[in-house]
């Protein structure tokens, strides 16, 4: 098992290398460079000074030298400078990453909390009214784009009913570390997390439902019934355990989806996380931030895939790797 994980991490190195080259080249190919933004912020800058700064920052060096420097800095935790915020990208991200992780984790937990019972009900009691309701919900969920749904939720529960705050991640008045602070955080988290989860969950509900429907007619379920195993145990020990396998493996892949989702959710709910920062930085052409975020999401995706493989091999004896 450990060897398997190590091997997988080794495989990730060339993947990461390719990813970094791609991102670097894309950043280079975009019009302007790290100083264009500064120029926009300060149009009166002297072209002579600008050229000196370019030279000093190494922007006139050959591309591969620049790449190596970029990677070296990145490995040392230096992701460059954000010109819009006038602070190191690393510091900028550090202030927001917690919020995004919190939101993603909340979405993930809610997604599975909703999907597992609904999927089980739907798959076990197929063609009952409960099943039909759940299937109906999942069709609607499929058809509704996340950002539209999030806007509706924001409008209804945020503005119209006023049950939840409509922006930010915490009240500014409350003191950090107090109970009120955590409650306020939770309060701010609810609406974006629920919006994400309610849409996110329909894929898993459908998947779980069809897994259960497939599994319950399998031969080994007949064997179990022929042993005289009670119906409850038939479901828990035989049908559900086998149906959960692919669902468990999804957990890692979900991370990729969460990254995309956080861009919409955080922007709509003005939730100060990485997703919101990403969209802002693109609009303001803050390249050093954008490249850093793309790189991070690339790494997160790779880690998610690895996680999925590890989970699968942990729960499925057929894929146990020495």
């Amino acid at each position: 098992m450990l060897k398997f994980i190590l091997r997988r991490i080794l495989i990730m190195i060339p993947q990461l290398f390719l990813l970094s080259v791609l991102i670097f080249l894309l950043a280079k190919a975009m019009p302007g460079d790290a100083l264009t933004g500064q120029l926009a912020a300060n149009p009166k800058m002297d072209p002579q000074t600008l050229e000196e700064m370019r030279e000093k920052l190494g922007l006139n060096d050959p591309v591969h030298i620049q790449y190596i420097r970029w990677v070296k800095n990145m490995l040392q935790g230096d992701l460059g400078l954000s010109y819009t915020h006038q602070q190191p990208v690393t510091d900028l991200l550090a202030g927001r990453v917690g919020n995004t992780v919190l939101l993603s984790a909340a979405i993930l937990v809610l997604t599975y909390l909703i999907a597992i019972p609904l999927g089980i009900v739907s798959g076990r009691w197929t063609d009952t009214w409960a099943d039909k309701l759940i299937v109906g919900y999942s069709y609607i969920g499929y058809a509704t784009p996340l950002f539209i749904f999030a806007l509706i939720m924001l409008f209804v529960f945020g503005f119209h009913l006023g049950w939840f705050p409509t922006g930010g991640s915490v009240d500014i008045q409350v003191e950090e570390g107090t109970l009120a602070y955590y409650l306020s955080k939770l309060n701010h988290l609810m609406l974006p997390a629920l919006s994400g989860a309610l849409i996110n969950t329909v894929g898993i509900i459908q998947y779980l439902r069809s897994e259960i429907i497939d599994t319950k007619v399998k031969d080994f379920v007949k064997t179990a019934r022929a042993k005289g195993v009670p119906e409850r145990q038939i479901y828990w020990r035989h049908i559900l355990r086998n149906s959960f396998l692919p669902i468990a493996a999804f957990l890692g892949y979900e991370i990729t989806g969460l990254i995309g989702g956080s861009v919409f959710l955080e922007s709509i709910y003005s939730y100060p996380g990485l997703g919101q920062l990403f969209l802002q930085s693109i609009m303001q052409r803050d390249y050093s931030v954008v490249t850093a975020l793309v790189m991070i999401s690339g790494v997160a995706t790779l880690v998610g895939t690895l996680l999925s493989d590890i989970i699968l091999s942990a729960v499925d004896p057929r894929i146990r790797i020495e």
Partner: protein
Amino acid sequence: MSKQPLLEIERLRVSFQIEGAYYAAVDDVSLVIEENEVVALVGESGCGKSALALSIMGLHPPEKTKVEGRLLFKGTNLLSLSVSELNRIRGKEIGMIFQDPLTALNPLMTVGRQIEESMNYHLRLPAEEKKKRTIRLLERVGIPEPEKVYHRYPHELSGGMRQRVVIAIAIACEPSLLIADEPTTALDVTIQAQIMELLKELQRQMKTSIILITHDLGVVAEMADRVAVMYAGEIVELADVDTIFHRPLHPYTRSLLQSIPSAQVKKDRLHVIQGIVPPLHKLPRRGCRFQPRISWIGAEQHELEPQLREVEPGHWVRCTCYRHFHFPDDQMTREVDYGAS
């Protein structure tokens, strides 16, 4: 008064729902299984053998299947029991061996756990006792290194070994009736013989009755006491094994026997039964169901409502057409003794 039989199948009908209507796959079948008796159930694919077997175990999904008639097991009608009442009999009194060992075992449970599972509900045994018993069972079904195999997952075993595990599960609580639905069809020929040998040996030791479903008439000859020949959901002939092999009457039985290569009598041509068993919803429901496949026999030779009749003690045949049956001339099996020619 004679002893109560182990299982009395009385006018059993199993119907499946196909596009809204029910069609009987097992149609008015009556059959008695005595204690310590091996009854073979033979017939072509699709004639209802599995449907019959599954109905005894109550394994048909109730929504889409109708099971009518009576299944008296030691005097109790299995069809009148609730699922939880049935669960006290399944696995304990009746064990089932399935056809495909590759799919019959739960891929996520170790062999040991799967065998112990049935003991959990039927025998109250302390854990170490249970494990000992399981390892003994594995030994008994011919699995080498049972202590190791106990901890293995099904995918780590070969097909033959898995089928031995399936058998171990079926006999874990020493049932008085075993239902084996083509227990060797999915296996290599050499393994088939070993598994049949094992079943025979177990039967001898445990005195279990067996309903043996098979296509292999060689196996029937070796193992069965009596044979029920099924065609299109009905029993067309029922007799002890010697009678079936030496004095078969029904055209279908004779055709089946003619269609197997035999070691003693070498034939230059094997008989091929014309046509196929029709799909359920196209089965002829009136008259002799085999009639369309022996079209050279005149319609007047068949009964309008063929009955299963006892033509000699213990030998039952359906329809009168057997009296007039002959193989068609163009398919007549000319028996040639290769040694003489």
